[in-house]
């Protein structure tokens, strides 16, 4: 089946990100196709390039990136939710005159239209939230 995940919980604050990541790994292990993870609401913090958790804890940001490169999973971050929470890629940082970049590939800033699209075209869209 073709799956997509909607993640709306902040990393390290709620269980949602950990559960979503485990569900994502289980999907691909079972031979399903995971098209994309869409990050919305506080879930956008999963794309924070500067996250530096203690070394003996799971690194969620790196884990998403690794899942993406191994299984061609798109990591789509709602741009409106991201910008107001300080998550900017190079283009948006330049556009808003900010001297730091907090989001980089494989995470991509995109619109809510992508979420609607995933909900329409995938067999299942599964939500994880606090």
């Amino acid at each position, binding site marked *: 089946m073709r799956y997509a995940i909607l993640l709306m919980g902040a990393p390290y604050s709620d269980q949602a990100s950990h559960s979503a990541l485990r569900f994502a790994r289980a999907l691909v292990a079972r031979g399903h196709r995971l098209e994309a993870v869409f990050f919305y609401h506080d879930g956008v913090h999963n794309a924070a390039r500067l996250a530096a958790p203690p070394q003996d804890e799971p690194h969620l940001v790196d884990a998403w990136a690794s899942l993406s490169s191994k299984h061609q999973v798109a990591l789509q971050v709602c741009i409106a939710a991201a910008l107001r929470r300080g998550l900017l890629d190079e283009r948006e940082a330049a556009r808003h005159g900010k001297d730091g970049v907090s989001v980089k590939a494989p995470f991509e800033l995109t619109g809510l239209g992508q979420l*609607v699209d995933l*909900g329409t075209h995938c067999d299942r*869209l599964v939500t994880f939230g606090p």
Partner: protein
Amino acid sequence: MQEPHDDGDLLVILRHGPHGSSWLKEGLDAALVAAAFGRRVSLLFMGEGVTALIADQQVGALGQKGTAATLEMLEMYDIETLLVEAQGLSRLGLSRDDLMLEVECLSPVALARVLSGHRLVLTF
């Protein structure tokens, strides 16, 4: 028997009030975008979410824009199916007369039917 998913493409369930968090605003944003993309969208206000519909609301004290203006625009986006959990209203001592828009009140049984009547459900 009713066809599955016959009520609409997307059901957006709103369970939070207007000012305490961004859940309501971000849920409405998702509904508006889906409608702008031509999807048939229904809104279901549940629990505390019914307070979004209380008439004569002001914007939030924290520099928020409030959500009442967005609700007034729903018709422009062809979002006309507005559903309310009847128990959610009565639990808060509200009636349909307190609300700013015409809504359909749903019993628990009707709620279950609405859930299965939509292809996609997003909960905020």
